[in-house]
């Protein structure tokens, strides 16, 4: 028989027994929906956690530091510094997509009466662009000729009124500063600053008067979105492009050591600027561990979210399996329902099957007819079940959102929808297999027994 004819015949015989077909399909609908919804809960939890990890430094990023594992006997030469050489070496690894040196420095920012200690992190423009900061205003400082800052969303909260001593964390007053437009002055040479401060209020301890260091006006590139209360890994940092930053620092500290930079044995600064950290982005989550180990083996300290991700994945894998298992029970019940329906149908159609055999229907075609019928029950049930699942998922997420939680609890990805329909068809055909064999083996004699 032609496939088209087989399909038509099996559909028409399902159509002939509408009520029973609908009831059997309903079983599959419930089975599919319960599996999909259960698995979607596991996936939703997993995804929420992954997003959380992503926001806390990403799934593919690796931080590299100087190894803290050296003692006084380690000669200065042996010390593994983070320099441009290392950046180049790491960049050459095929699994590394992006490498950026990170230079950080603590400074004091002043704006009117407000003061704040800022942690400035200089990174390459490429890396800054890659971080995907959500911006409240302005832009990411990509320009390499001017130094401009991108403020984290909680920076504003850190400004304290130096006269009244009040601040956001003390009494909840929001500092009256517009980061984007107000003039903010930055003092890079903190040592000199505090020395000079000590002088002013001093009791004349006899120390030579120290001139207060120069203040530099800060150019604002942008402010990261998120409000004062939301903490993310970037909330407390000020970002800028490393190229103008290096130039700027070299100019300010001409002939002196830049704070945080190592000194030679004689107390002199090195010519080269050493980085505090190197930021590495692997091309894929799968390669993070490999790249991380490679860098560690070179003698550096590294950190990534791999272990966190791995343990989370494992944990949610179990949850998914348990939830899916609970859902599977109802699909098994539905499968038994299909088998039962097909059996009934065969008993009812013994004569019809016999006639078909007598007038020349292949045994294989009879089997195919019944398998297709069962498969159709699975297909329809699976499709309706998926629709139903999306509905339930929507309701669950509404309820969760209504409770004020900022997460998608139930998440149905396309693959889950597709796989569950395929699975439902498979379950249908598997349940129809024995009935189909039975139909195939029915004696054609049954047809011509008079009755």
């Amino acid at each position, binding site marked *: 028989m032609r496939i088209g004819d087989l399909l038509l015949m099996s559909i028409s*015989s399902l159509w002939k027994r509408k009520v029973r077909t609908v009831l059997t399909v309903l079983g599959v609908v419930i089975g599919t929906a319960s599996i999909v919804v259960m698995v979607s809960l596991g996936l939703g939890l997993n995804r929420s956690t992954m997003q959380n990890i992503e926001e806390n430094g990403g799934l593919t990023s690796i931080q590299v530091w100087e190894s803290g594992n050296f003692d006084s006997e380690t000669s200065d030469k042996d010390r593994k510094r983070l320099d441009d050489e290392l950046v180049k070496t790491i960049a050459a690894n095929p699994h590394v997509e992006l490498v950026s040196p990170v230079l950080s420095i603590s400074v004091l920012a002043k704006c009117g009466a407000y003061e704040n200690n800022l942690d400035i992190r200089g990174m390459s423009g490429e890396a800054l662009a890659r971080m995907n900061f959500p911006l409240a205003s302005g832009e990411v400082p990509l320009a390499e000729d001017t130094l401009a800052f991108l403020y984290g969303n909680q920076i504003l909260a850190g400004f304290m009124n130096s006269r009244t001593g009040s601040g956001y964390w003390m009494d909840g007053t929001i500092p009256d500063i517009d980061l984007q437009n107000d003039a903010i002055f930055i003092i890079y040479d903190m040592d000199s600053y505090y020395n000079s401060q000590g002088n002013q209020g001093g009791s004349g301890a006899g120390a030579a008067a120290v001139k207060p260091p120069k203040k530099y006006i800060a150019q604002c590139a942008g402010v990261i979105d998120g409000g004062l209360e939301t903490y993310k890994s970037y909330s407390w940092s000020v970002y800028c492009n490393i190229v103008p930053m290096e130039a700027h620092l070299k100019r300010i500290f001409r002939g002196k050591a830049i704070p945080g930079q190592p000194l030679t044995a004689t107390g002199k600064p090195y010519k080269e600027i050493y980085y505090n950290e190197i930021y590495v982005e692997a091309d894929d989550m799968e390669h993070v561990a490999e790249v991380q180990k490679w860098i560690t083996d070179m003698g550096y300290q590294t950190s990534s979210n791999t272990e966190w991700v791995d343990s989370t994945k494992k944990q949610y894998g179990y949850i998914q399996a348990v939830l899916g298992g609970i859902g599977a029970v109802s699909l098994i019940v539905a499968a038994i329902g299909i088998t039962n329906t097909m059996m009934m149908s065969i008993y009812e159609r013994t004569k019809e099957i016999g006639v078909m055999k007598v007038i020349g229907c*292949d045994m294989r*075609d009879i089997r195919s007819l019944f398998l297709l019928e069962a498969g159709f029950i699975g297909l329809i049930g699976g499709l309706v079940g998926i629709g139903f699942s999306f509905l339930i998922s929507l309701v669950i997420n509404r309820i969760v959102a209504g409770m004020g939680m900022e997460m998608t609890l139930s998440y149905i990805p396309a693959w889950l929808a597709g796989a569950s329909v395929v699975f439902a068809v498979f379950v249908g055909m598997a349940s129809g297999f024995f009935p189909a064999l039975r139909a195939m083996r029915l*004696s054609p*004699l049954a047809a*011509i027994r*008079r009755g």
Partner: protein
Amino acid sequence: MKKDKTVITVSDLYKIYRVGETKVRALNGVDFSINRGEFCSIVGASGSGKSTLLNMLAGLEKPTKGEIVIAGEHMEKKSENGLVRFRQAHIGFIFQSFNLMDTMNAIENVALPLTFQGMDRRTRTRKAEQMLDMVGLTKYKKHKPTQMSGGQQQRVGVARALVVEPEIIFADEPTGNLDSRTSREVMELMQRVVREKKQTLIMVTHDNELAGFADRIFHIRDGKILKIEEKT
């Protein structure tokens, strides 16, 4: 009548059923042969073994012993799939209770054997319509079995048996569910069509009058052929 080529040869055929401890001999040594283009009736009382004989000729039942050769092929040696394929190619079947598919109209019912053969829709519909024209149901092509009288339904049954252009047609009490006038009509139709197309028709019946339409009448009793009546 003129002797044609033999199309069916049955030799030494036995069918023994085991009912509990006792053996029932449904067929107890049957030998005969049928020629191409012949119309034969098998007549006997209920339980005489006539239906068993027909079932075995059509390959629906396996004999306990003996040979059935149809169109040169041994039926008793075929697998079930082999029998299906043989029936597709060589055999048409007319049932007592018509056994039409309720969900299908007359054309679809007649075309069903062609559907099983894998013929495309257009060709099989054309052939089915020709057959329906031939059995006089031109006006009823789109009717479902439930919308037709018994006689009309059996005409559809006849058309379905003939649509594959089989060499042999088996009819099992084809008029058993019809009144006598309609029975005659159906019998005349079968007789006419089979003669026109030179097909072999084997009919089982318990009605001596209807058996009289045949060229040869096999009388069967207690699993044996009592006599073969030849009409001239």
